[in-house]
């Protein structure tokens, strides 16, 4: 009988990295206002910096196993535009949503994590061996797109 290690039963060894997430707000759909809740939960907001219109820009790449808890991108002003978020886990595009153009501040795609109306936040727990996160806008941007990514890295 082959050795069975604990890590093969629980933890990263026993879980598969998801290939896709289904049932969330999809491409071209009206996304939710999420930025205020995430900041209220003391998650660290980062700025996109310069973006070329309709072009993804990588904001995070990880090459060791870990878990994705929260991933979101959203608007920081009231100029109408689309915002996109792409999450690649283990080389497979897990989430890729370019939302419907709108002008609401703090609105944008949420690829991991659940926010309830009362601002209660639940994290997902997606295991990965490598992860890459990209964001984009339908406009050329300076710093008016923000994102929050919360993840853990394995020991």
């Amino acid at each position: 009988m082959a050795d069975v290690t604990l890590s093969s039963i629980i933890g990263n060894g026993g879980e598969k990295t998801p290939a896709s997430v289904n049932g969330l707000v999809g491409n071209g759909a009206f996304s939710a206002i999420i930025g205020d809740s995430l900041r209220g939960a003391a998650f660290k907001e980062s700025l996109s910096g310069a973006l070329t219109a309709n072009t993804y820009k990588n904001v995070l790449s990880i090459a060791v196993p870990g878990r994705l808890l929260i991933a979101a991108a959203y608007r920081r002003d009231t100029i109408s535009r689309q915002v996109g978020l792409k999450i690649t886990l283990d080389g497979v595009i897990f989430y890729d949503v370019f939302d419907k153009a709108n002008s609401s501040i703090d609105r944008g795609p949420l690829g991991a994590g659940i926010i309830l109306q009362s601002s209660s936040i639940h994290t997902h727990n997606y295991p990965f061996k490598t992860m890459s996160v990209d964001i984009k806008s339908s406009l050329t941007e300076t710093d008016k797109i923000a994102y929050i990514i919360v993840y853990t890295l394995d020991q």
Partner: protein
Amino acid sequence: MAERYEDIIHQGRIIGRKLVVDPVPETPPTTIDRDDFIERFTPDEWVLGQRAAQVDPILAQALTLLMAKSDGKVNLASPRMPPVFEKMVTLGVLTQERSRQILTP
């Protein structure tokens, strides 16, 4: 705005990179609401200023003109502002330091 990629170090080795964007420090507005302008004075300073204006018509007129804009805004950077505040310093309403503080956006 400065932006760069920083290495992510995990257990002593580089395991990835992340974008880091330094936000541009926001310049405070030089035009503020009239109420906010008044709040910059202590109650004693405000009373002293009103009393000084009662006996100094030039100061009274200058203060009225500076604060009587129809949009309810006061422009701290107006070139007309420093002479009025120098007058208040001369009259003992404000110290030089308080004058500088009140006019700082």
